[in-house]
């Protein structure tokens, strides 16, 4: 090549995918390998184009609704494929059930509620828990049932809970059943919350269908900021920390106690940034379309006790568990013993909801015990004053308890979880921390950054958020570009799998 000529052949490559049938197949087809999530760049690109057309329909309520429902269904198809049919079936039947429940009175009403609830739950139970029960049945009773080859439809845990909350609310007459099936479909399918929450309540969301937010410059900046912070939290911080966590948790026994301790911290931050980042993106996307979803996280790690932690962690789930399990069971109205019992049951369900494995049940149990212990402690402890040092101590204790429980959440099996705990308990040496810092400085810095953000005072966060409002609207394209490049810069960064320098 001559030094003066510029090779422009690569420019043709830009349009090459347009001529390739594979591109179109992957754009409209469903593939289990590449389900759509908010963090997929392909989704974000399509979402940008989607918004341009959305602008034309934003003033027309009906068209806007139809457009959103069809895009949501397409989104669900992209992530779950043929299970779209199941989802649609569930929507239509829940809609009919709700109408019937509203009309009936007395015992019939109650029966209908139970019928509809068991119907909704049956899908979740089958797809998520069938194999778990089969395994345990085979193990306990020596039966020979074979596994079902099941693919868990994406988001089923979330939308089942959503439909349960809707049916219960209609039963309790907190909201009227929707008269129009499209309204209900809109509430259920709305794609920002479809795949991984937040679990939206019908009474918060349905009114917004008719009166969406006014999309102005402020809302635009706020929503874009939410999306960007979410992307950075998920793809930059959480994924980076995850690389280290994956390495340690593959074989915890092979790593020193210090490395296991740090993996425990790293995972605590990873799961927080992962999920709260995802929720941020979901809330930001919904906001950009003119709908406000409830917050899902509120600085949970800064909580000074476990009860407050559960008020701030995955709020949409914990409040759901409280409103639809703990309170219907009897809450704290049926005596002291029952209160503790209900607390345990609620947390067990919460644990089991996360996955069909004994580890999650154990995790729920541990949290239930901690909540009960805290409740008992509050009743026994005479002093109601809450001085600063006890809050700091409480925060540290709560964080460490939560982080410890995450080991069971992350580990691949009970054995591996106990191996990790054993390393932490008996093989932790100070020099290994120094070794970690020497050989994995980037990871150490990332963990410090994550800790700083997780324990950051929320008032300061607000102030920063307000400051970003001062940035002119046209400049945001640049911030998006910078944020995306940061993500790309660190996405492929290979984290050395070894603690040793010498590899």
């Amino acid at each position, binding site marked *: 090549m001559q030094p003066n000529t510029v090779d422009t052949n*690569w*420019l043709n*490559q830009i349009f090459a995918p347009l001529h390739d049938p594979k591109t179109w197949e992957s754009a409209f087809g469903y593939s289990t390998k590449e389900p759509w999530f908010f963090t997929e760049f*392909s989704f*974000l*690109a399509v979402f*940008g*184009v*989607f*918004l*341009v057309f959305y*602008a034309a329909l*934003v*003033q027309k309520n009906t068209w806007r609704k139809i457009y959103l429902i069809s895009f949501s269904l397409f989104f669900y198809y992209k992530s779950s494929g043929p299970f779209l049919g199941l989802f649609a079936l569930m929507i239509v039947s829940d809609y009919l059930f709700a109408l019937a429940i509203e009309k009936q009175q007395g015992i019939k009403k109650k029966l209908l509620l139970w019928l509809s609830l068991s119907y909704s739950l049956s899908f979740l139970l089958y797809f998520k828990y069938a194999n778990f029960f089969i395994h345990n049945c085979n193990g306990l009773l020596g039966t020979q049932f074979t596994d079902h080859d099941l693919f868990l439809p994406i988001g089923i845990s979330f939308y089942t809970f959503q439909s349960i909350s809707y049916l219960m609310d209609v039963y309790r007459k907190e909201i009227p059943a929707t008269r129009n099936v499209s309204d209900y479909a809109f509430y259920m399918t709305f794609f920002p919350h479809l795949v991984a929450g937040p679990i939206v309540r019908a009474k*918060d969301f349905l009114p917004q269908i008719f*009166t*969406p*937010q*006014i*999309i*102005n*410059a*402020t*809302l*635009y900046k*706020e929503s*874009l900021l939410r*999306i960007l912070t979410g992307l950075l939290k998920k793809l930059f911080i959480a994924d980076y920390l995850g*690389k280290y966590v994956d390495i340690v948790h593959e074989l915890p026994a*092979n790593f020193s106690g210090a490395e296991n301790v740090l993996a425990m911290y790293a995972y605590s931050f990873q799961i927080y940034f992962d999920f709260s980042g995802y929720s941020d993106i979901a809330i930001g996307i919904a*906001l*950009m379309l003119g709908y*406000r979803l*409830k917050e899902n996280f*509120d600085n949970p790690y800064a909580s000074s006790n476990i009860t407050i932690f559960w008020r701030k962690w995955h*709020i949409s789930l914990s409040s759901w568990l409280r409103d639809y399990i703990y309170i219907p069971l009897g809450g704290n109205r049926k005596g002291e013993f029952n209160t503790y019992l209900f607390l345990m049951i609620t947390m067990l369900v919460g644990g089991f909801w996360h996955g069909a494995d004994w580890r999650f049940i154990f995790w729920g149990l541990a949290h239930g015990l901690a909540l009960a212990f805290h409740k008992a402690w509050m009743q026994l402890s005479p002093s109601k004053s809450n001085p600063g040092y006890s809050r700091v101590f409480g925060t540290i204790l709560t964080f460490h308890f939560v982080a410890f429980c995450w080991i069971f959440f992350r580990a691949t099996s009970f054995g591996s979880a106990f191996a990790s705990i054993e390393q932490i308990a008996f093989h932790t040496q100070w020099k290994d921390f120094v070794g970690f810092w020497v050989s994995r400085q980037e990871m150490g810095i990332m963990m410090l950054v994550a800790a700083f953000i997780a324990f950051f005072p*929320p*008032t300061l966060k*607000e102030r920063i*958020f*307000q400051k970003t*409002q001062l940035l002119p*609207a*046209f400049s945001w*394209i640049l911030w*998006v*570009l910078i944020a*995306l*490049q940061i993500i*790309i*810069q660190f*996405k*492929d960064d*290979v*984290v*050395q*799998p*070894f603690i040793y*320098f010498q*590899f």
Partner: protein
Amino acid sequence: MFRAGNDPKIIGAKSLCLKYFCSTLADKEHQITPDLASTMSAKASTVTGGDAHTQVPQSEAGADRPEKSSPWLIVWAGLSISLPLLLLYIYSCSPQTLQFGQLELKQILGNQDIDAMLAELDEKEPADAGANHLSGSTTTANSTDTPLIVGESVPFLANNSNNNFTLPPYELPVFADTTKHRILLIGDSESGGLRYPLNDYCLANGHKIILSLEWYSATTFNFGRSDTIQKIIAKYKPTYIFLVFGLNELYARDLKARKIAANQLAKKLRGIPYAWIGPANWEEDNGINRVFQSSADSATYFMTKKLTLTRASDGRHPDTKGYRIWMDSIAGWIQTSARYKMLMKPPRKRGRPFRAPVITINAAKYRGY
């Protein structure tokens, strides 16, 4: 804390922009006030399901603002997401990457078809006519007998400025499958383990390891972009090269850049018989094996990842037994189906002392390019 409507002083203190923000958010009809503060700090009210239905006073600045969503703003919102992605996509199509000093701006690879990418890059860098740079004068080799040389102190490696280093010519003997070879072992930490069983094989078959270059933490970039290998070849004049690395790159996804580096590396080896041993995967990689295989000449790449090896306590490196099993498989392959065959009968005695010089470099300290 800023909560619209509660503290007019704070609102007043903020700029006009914030005033506009408060006023336009005030939705008179529906009383929905999604103020920023309540979003950011969803207090217990969110938990209990209660909404903060605060009413925002209509400020003068906002009185004449339209109360409808602005379609142009939504278009702009769409563009502000798609355009940066489009820009990044176009950038990722470009063969050149932008550099700001030490910082190289990476490209998105996304869901690119690895095979297509490999094929395309191979077309761009056609195979040269082979060892045209290897013909010339005859120089006999004299390997130093220094037992261990550590990276920074290697005099001929220290000068890093000369990137266009060309190999001084030397003549390779005519090869037969039974030729006694002068073997150069190059690799990352795996070569440190593999050199012992390789040594056993060499002693049993009359070959000689003339040098083992152990470049810890090294990746394709170190081997491909630097001229270190050429310098070492020029100095030690091997007749057969063992190349073993890639364990640091199993998780790599920037395969395009690595492919380019691997091609550069393959170019450097051209003319000398070599065996390119793939990394001892402990789990599936993201395509680095395919990159190496496509860059290596046909039948010169040994796919290690198919082997089941016993591992050391780190769970990743093979242990002593694992390295032996690995070397046994390599030896069988070199005798039978490798492109450059040589005598590799199993040794009777194992675990013999390794006496060849070893150069150890750490990629964290010496990058080479």
